[in-house]
């Protein structure tokens, strides 16, 4: 075989005089550039995957929490004082747990030091910094609390323990509306099909008809359910942690139902299964919360008599 033949067989080896095969240095440079480039791509990709995973978990958890808040809101909104009934049934039970998310949310070197009660338990509310009241013209929202700490201000209920509150209420049929809704509903955190931390709704439709109650899950991995009740009977109406329409005292012209309910649902959003978390590890959560007025109360003539004149 001639030299020309060999060159035709190994074209890359041809032309070392100026073109053709790479030198070792060129090969190393290309390898180095490629490695750096691939490392960058891999790092970016891993970060994107992590962010995507976290975003997906938070989104799922938030949608679950929000769906639960909406479900409770719908029932609470339908509650009303039925004067034809011998008693009203609206029972909110307050149950605190010893800990919260194990995160110092307000960075005061204390962890989970507050109860979710609308009060500044840890005494860190500051009037110049935390008193939030949006004004429309000369009127102000929550104006009865201007200059005082209340729920909606900064540094109030910002580093709470978890609660497992419960609410049971009756929606009485409206005699003026034939076939109107009649049910007893309750919400609580419990177990469902061997899974713990499930927010459950139990509904008994048409009580007295012999129908069996329906029990079903509203949301899974629920770590906290907080319910507060706006008491219109107090000299200064504000949130209370418990309500018992049946056994409470409501001196005339008292309202046996709260004017509004604060609903807050906290759902676990971490990637490690909850039961595998260490006893001191921070707990990643998302919370959905809202306030729902009980229409029949805020439009009741007694509310106009008890509350509105002082606003």
């Amino acid at each position, binding site marked *: 075989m001639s030299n020309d033949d060999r060159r035709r067989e190994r074209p890359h080896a041809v032309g070392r005089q100026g073109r053709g095969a790479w030198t070792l240095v060129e090969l190393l440079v290309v390898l180095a550039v490629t490695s750096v480039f691939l490392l960058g*791509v891999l790092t970016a990709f891993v970060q994107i995957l992590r962010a995507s995973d976290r975003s997906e978990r938070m989104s799922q958890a*938030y949608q679950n929490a929000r769906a639960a808040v909406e479900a409770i809101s719908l029932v609470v909104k339908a509650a009303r004082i039925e004067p034809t009934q011998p008693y009203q049934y609206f029972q909110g039970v307050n149950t605190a747990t010893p800990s919260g998310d194990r995160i110092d949310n307000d960075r005061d070197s204390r962890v989970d030091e507050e109860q979710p009660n609308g009060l500044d338990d840890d005494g860190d509310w500051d009037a110049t910094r935390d008193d939030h009241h949006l004004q429309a013209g000369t009127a102000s929202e929550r104006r009865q609390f201007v200059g005082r700490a209340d729920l909606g201000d900064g540094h109030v209920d910002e580093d709470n323990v978890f609660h497992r509150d419960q609410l049971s209420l009756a929606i009485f049929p409206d005699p003026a509306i034939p076939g109107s809704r009649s049910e007893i509903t309750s919400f609580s955190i419990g177990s469902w099909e061997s899974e713990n931390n499930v927010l459950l709704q139990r509904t008994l439709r048409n009580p007295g008809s012999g129908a069996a109650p329906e029990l079903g899950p509203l949301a899974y991995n629920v770590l906290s359910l907080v319910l507060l009740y706006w008491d219109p009977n107090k000299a200064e109406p504000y949130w209370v942690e418990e309500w018992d329409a049946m056994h409470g005292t409501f001196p005339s012209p008292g309202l046996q139902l709260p004017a509004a309910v604060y609903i807050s649902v906290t759902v676990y959003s971490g990637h490690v299964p909850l039961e595998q978390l260490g006893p001191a590890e921070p707990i990643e959560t998302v919370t959905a919360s809202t306030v729902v007025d009980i229409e029949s109360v805020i439009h009741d003539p007694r509310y106009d008599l008890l509350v509105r004149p002082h606003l």
Partner: protein
Amino acid sequence: MGRPTNAGFGFHSSFILHRSSLRGFSFLEILISLVILLAGILAILIYFPNILRANDRAIVLSEAALLAQRKAEEVRRDDNLARTLIGSIRNLTAPTSPMVFVENPNLAYRFSGVSLLHPVETPGDPASQRGVARIIIQYAPGFRSDDRPLYELRFDE
């Protein structure tokens, strides 16, 4: 048997016919192709955060709706017999300055009697009607400079 030819095998033959002119890639060519590859992959990577942002925006809109509802319910609960607060909100011809939510410092709310989503009043369109109390949710000014409304809730006493 003679030497096999490539006649009739155009694709193969084209490679063979030009073998003499082939000399592999030059260093510069490799670097240029790497840059093009990098640009392509970066373009794909840049697209991913947009997907994440869309996901985050869905959460933000969902939260904005709950927070707006909360504010409206507080206003209705706390208004006096003359409905001074709702009346004052209805009379606003421009939104108030934004107030940051304590529950989510990335969001802020404003009261308004006019719509920001539908600034031109159209007869028969309740969304654009003036003189209706509204809660408008937007990003907090310290979080994003984008002050366009995310969510607008009309409410009454």
